[in-house]
């Protein structure tokens, strides 16, 4: 991390170039794994982002793009960190074409602000990560954020149709456009979705958006145990239903959101006839263990599920991805393996996607043993585990991504092509990219 001399010199140089009000040395909110940058720069225009990156790259200063710093701890600690580049002041909704169902925004707009604006036309960008009010569009894309709705609405990659990025050398590049179907040139948007600030700074994006469902309804289905829940969820996913989401909660997770035992939260959306018909199907399958939540409980449950990845109290959080049936097979083993090590595990799964989020609480040494078991168990079933947040004590002992395949060489090649001097978020991504 920067020495104070280095920091002073850097701040002086940046202030001289970008004006005093764009450069701040109040970096407390931008710390990653205990390390603070020398300063925070808040550009007002896309061109300034380019100037700053060109300036930093020439001097081998490392830059990390930051939205609202809500998800900064995701990823490995940076190898070097001189400048936090905040996109907060690039916050315009450039164009909302309601009749075309597209919207173009700058990276610093928050998802909450965007969806408030779209709601006036009864439309939404149907992504539901935690802290929607604070998550910026840049952070949303870079961290590939999503939530329960991904089952029916897809992920960032499915909704993003155009992107503008600033590369490490300061050049501004775009791909895609503002039309919903377009195959001209390579699809750079896909590359930047989930790139964690390592390839370029996202400054503007265009999404296809969707009409809001006319009505929504949430059902809670009580289950006997984790295995019962996992299997029932798969059955429901195979039934004549088109749910917005299907989430499985283990007992610990269910208790945390006020339910008396583990179960399934299932949301429906559409017009009344559709909701009624589906509700009948579900009740036919589940009998009295299924009940329709009243408005208050529905809102509370939906909110809780969305915010689950952000629960502060956990020692560590992980994401598991497997084929849905494999995840259903692994799920009943997670809680006993944690309990056997004196740990508490809250697990919520996006059952139809084969993705589980796990919060582990307890002793770090035991957690490390559990992590080792988990990696082996998940790999044996053909899936992956990513650790979104790790206690400082385990940094260096656990590689957050744990990913090694031949494709990594291509990923390293892409990083070298776009950021040859390693200016952007060095060391934060898979394989130390």
């Amino acid at each position, binding site marked *: 991390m920067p020495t104070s001399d280095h920091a002073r010199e850097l701040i002086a140089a940046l202030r001289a170039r970008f004006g005093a009000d764009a450069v701040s040395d109040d970096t407390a909110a931008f710390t990653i794994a205990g390390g603070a940058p020398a300063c925070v720069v808040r550009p007002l225009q896309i061109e300034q982002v380019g100037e700053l990156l060109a300036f930093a790259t020439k001097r081998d200063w490392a830059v990390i793009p930051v939205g609202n710093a809500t998800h900064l701890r995701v990823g490995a600690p940076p190898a070097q960190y001189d400048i936090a580049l905040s996109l907060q002041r690039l916050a315009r909704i450039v164009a909302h074409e309601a009749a075309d169902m597209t919207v173009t925004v700058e990276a610093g707009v928050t998802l909450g602000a965007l969806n408030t604006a779209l709601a006036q036309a009864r439309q939404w960008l149907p992504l539901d990560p935690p802290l929607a009010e604070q998550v910026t569009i840049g952070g949303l894309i870079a961290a590939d954020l999503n939530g329960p709705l991904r089952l029916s609405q897809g992920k960032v990659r499915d909704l993003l149709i155009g992107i503008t990025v600033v590369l490490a050398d300061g050049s501004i590049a775009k791909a895609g456009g503002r039309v919903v179907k377009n195959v001209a040139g390579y699809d750079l948007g896909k590359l930047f979705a989930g790139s964690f600030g390592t390839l370029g700074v996202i400054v503007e994006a265009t999404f296809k958006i969707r009409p809001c469902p006319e009505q929504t309804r949430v059902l809670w289905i009580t289950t006997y145990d984790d295995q019962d829940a996992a299997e029932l969820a798969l059955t429901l996913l195979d039934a004549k239903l088109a749910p917005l989401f299907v989430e499985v909660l283990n007992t610990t997770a269910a208790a945390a959101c006020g339910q008396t035992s583990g179960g399934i939260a299932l949301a429906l959306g559409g*017009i009344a006839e559709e909701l009624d018909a589906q509700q009948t199907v579900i009740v036919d399958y589940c009998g009295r263990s299924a009940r329709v939540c009243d408005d208050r409980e529905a809102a509370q449950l939906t909110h809780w599920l969305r915010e689950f990845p952000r629960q502060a109290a956990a020692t560590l959080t992980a994401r598991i991805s497997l084929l849905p049936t494999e995840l259903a097979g692994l799920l009943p083993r997670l809680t006993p393996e944690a309990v056997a090590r004196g740990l508490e595990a809250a697990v919520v799964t996006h059952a139809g996607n084969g993705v589980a989020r796990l919060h582990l609480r307890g002793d770090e040494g035991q957690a490390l043993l559990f992590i080792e078991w988990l990696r082996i168990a998940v790999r044996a079933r053909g899936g992956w585990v990513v650790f979104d947040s790790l206690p400082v004590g385990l940094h260096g002992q656990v590689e957050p991504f744990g990913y090694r395949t031949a494709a990594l060489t291509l990923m390293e090649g892409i990083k070298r092509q776009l950021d040859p001097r390693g200016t952007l978020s060095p060391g934060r991504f898979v394989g130390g990219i």
Partner: protein
Amino acid sequence: MLSAGVIEQLRDIVGADGVIARDSELRVYECDGYTLERSTPQVVVLPKSTAEVAAILTVLHSERIAFVPRGAGTGLSGGCLPIDAPVMVCTSRMKRIVAIDFANRRATVEAGVANLAVTNEVKSRGLYYAPDPSSQQACTIGGNVAENSGGPHTLKYGVTTNHVLGLELVLPSGEIVQLGGAVEDVPGYDLVGLTVGSEGTFGIVTQATLRLSRQPESWKTLLAVFESVNDATQTVSGIIAAGIVPAALEMMDRLIVEAIEAAYHFGFPTDAGAVLIIELDGLAAGLERQAQQVVEICRANHSREVKVAKDEAERAALWKSRKRAFGAVGRLAPSYCTQDGVVPRTKLPDILRAITRIGVHYRLRIANVFHAGDGNIHPILLYDERNADEVERVLAAGREILEACVALGGSVTGEHGIGVEKIQQMPLIFSPTDLLVMQQLRKVFDPTLRSNPGKIFPTPGVCVETTRPMRRAAM
């Protein structure tokens, strides 16, 4: 010229029947569905497995020879036209369905499997592969991946990239890499997303893991008849603006309806200005109300009549007519060229007016059949190949149509790709920096630019030439 030694090595890999080198047999491979330009490869190789593809590319790598991948050759932008690439690698013998996982709705297939073959394999279990290009009986999954192909039903369900989870890719060096996989959220950059739509410039895709979808419980297919193209396109905007997302929303104008009717006798009204095929699908409950809403929007835009397909047979016949529209065009003229621009959907009336104007100006007949819900137009320019002057006018009119799309905020290709056809139009939508970044990415996969050279990116020198039809016929 390729040396006899190289051809010998290729024969050793794929067997004598897997190498085509006789002039008469090579003619089949001189163009794809874009017939304005032709060029014959020196040799076509037909591997039967990933291992054979890897062995072929290893030989070509050590000899520094360029190659062009080919599937079924139904592409409409000259994507598999050999340009400075002596060897064509064709996947037509790689038709194995490798694995189907019904419970998780995944299929892994070889690149040469036809799009419709995937659906045929799984439909008895109520599943299907959603992207449905009109060429789906013939076109291959490898070609679909290369072009990021769409189809009538991709309006609601998304195009190829939304349904491909994993790829097996043989790099031009001969190395085999796995990108993505059967599970979601594979860590790392989304190399599958980058490779889909890269038009064969990253190497040869040998297998793909696809997401299968469950057939909708129910359909409602409507045929709405209008006096004018303008009324039909206003209806499209009206439906989208009402927040209805149909499974498909297709438009055909009078010229194409006449041709289809003459060929297939479906019962389309040949005196109508335009027809829309509107398909709603999903849960049975609620479809009725949505259909009513659509009918009202049609009426508000002066539809002459709206018919609902009364049973599955009528629905199937309607779609068959739509999907064979291109085939019927043969009745209208000896040759045709299809454009593939996209505009924001609210700009459809503007672009169709522009197309009419351009047709009049260049004295060309232009038929329209297209994916209206996506704003993806397919004006079909009719001409006679033997008339050199008409060919020049077709090329000029095509360029003007694409320029008009861009001026309206759109793009030059929605699903057919850039290929050789639209290389000059790339600078209309991308800056030199944008194009440079894409080329830097290409180098990661293909550092010596030997996989499908001469495609997508304008290179000085090639620039003027590509507008000349059949310039390479003598090669």
